[in-house]
């Protein structure tokens, strides 16, 4: 590509040097040694000064800046890492505390519930006992009543039947035989009544 460019340039410059109205000195000014020494002198001077100033004053500062920035960044990363670890620790602690409290709350809740349930159970049991007692008492009373009522009924029946017999036949009958008959009848009647 370089050759091509140079060739093109040569061709074009030839055309132009011919066609130029003001064809001054043709050729390349680069090959005119008139100012070579001056160019070398000024190149050495400017480039030398540039090199000295850059290497003595400017580049150390830039490299220093880069170094300090690097170390600062590393430091910052380190502290950030430390802080992150601390935060993780704290978060773990926090989680632990929360878990503990949750467990405690559950325990308290459970124990309270158990207590309440026990209480309810006890009360129910005692209530049931009471009720049972009452029932037994009532049954006993009923039985008592049944018995007494039967005796009374038999008595009444004997008296009424003796009265009836007296009025019918005008004579007293042996009470014991009467009561035996009445008892026998009433027993039969009672058995029929009680559904045995």
């Amino acid at each position, binding site marked *: 590509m370089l050759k091509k*460019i140079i060739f093109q340039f040569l061709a074009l410059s030839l055309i132009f040097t011919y066609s130029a109205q003001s064809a001054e000195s043709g050729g390349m000014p680069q090959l005119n040694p008139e100012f070579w020494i001056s*160019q070398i002198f000024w190149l050495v001077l*400017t480039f030398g000064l540039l*090199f000295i100033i850059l290497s003595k004053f400017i580049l150390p500062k830039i490299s220093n800046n880069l170094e300090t920035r690097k170390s600062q960044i590393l430091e910052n990363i380190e502290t950030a890492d430390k802080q992150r670890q601390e935060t993780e620790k704290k978060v773990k602690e926090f989680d632990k505390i929360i878990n503990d409290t949750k467990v405690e709350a559950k325990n308290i809740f459970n124990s309270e519930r158990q207590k309440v349930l026990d209480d309810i159970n006890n009360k129910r049991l005692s209530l049931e006992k009471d009720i049972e007692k009452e029932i037994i008492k009532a049954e006993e009373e009923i039985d008592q009543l049944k018995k007494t009522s039967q005796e009374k009924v038999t008595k009444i029946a004997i008296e009424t039947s003796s009265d009836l017999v007296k009025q019918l036949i005008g004579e007293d009958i042996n009470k014991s035989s009467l009561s035996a008959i009445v008892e026998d009848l009433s027993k039969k009647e009672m058995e029929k009544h009680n559904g045995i």
Partner: protein
Amino acid sequence: MAANPMYQFNVYRIGPEIKINNIDISFTNASLFMVISSLAILIIFNLGTKRSIIPNKIQLLAELSYSFISKMISDTAGSKAKPYFSFIFSLFMFVLFCNMFGMIPYSFTVTSHIIVTFVLAAFIFVGVTIIGFIKHGLGYLKLFVPSGVPMVLLPLIVVIEIISYLSRPISLSVRLFANMMAGHTMMKVFGGFVVSLGIVGGWLPLGFSVALTGLEILVAFLQAYVFAILTCIYLNDALNLHH
């Protein structure tokens, strides 16, 4: 003046003639642009040395260039080339700024003169050779004897190696000089076409001119980079002798 595309490379005296022992070292337009480039580098990089953790734009520029060149050197020449960092940095910046200032219309391109690039390249060549001999003594001559070459071919190879070594300053200087000169001449020629073809036909060369300007800015950077990286490669040969 506009018609001759080579006119832009003329060197002329600015101010009085300065002579020391009959040697003309007058201040010329070339000298002016060398001074301008150096001053620009110094100003920009001096502004970039502010001590702040978060850099501003100029500081960022300076620090990015620093790490760019530092990386380039360590990639090509290894860690042993650290002491030569300032020189390569100055060299790259000087060539880059001279090339870039040359892209401003009516300015002068310092690096389009073979004598300037040749002096730089010759200085590098001599310096690298001296460094090589200091580091390795006469062992530096092993550079011309590649390992693993059959004995029969060795004389030929050694001659070729010596020629290629000696042609380094020429190839280095001519590469930069020819690129800059050719590019600037092309731009001048297309500019001349714009003028001579006028309002009717001048648009095509104008477009070319615009495109060439972009290309030339790229070339200006690229050639400075190539100049610096070749210096690094030569330095690598001198520092780590493993040819």
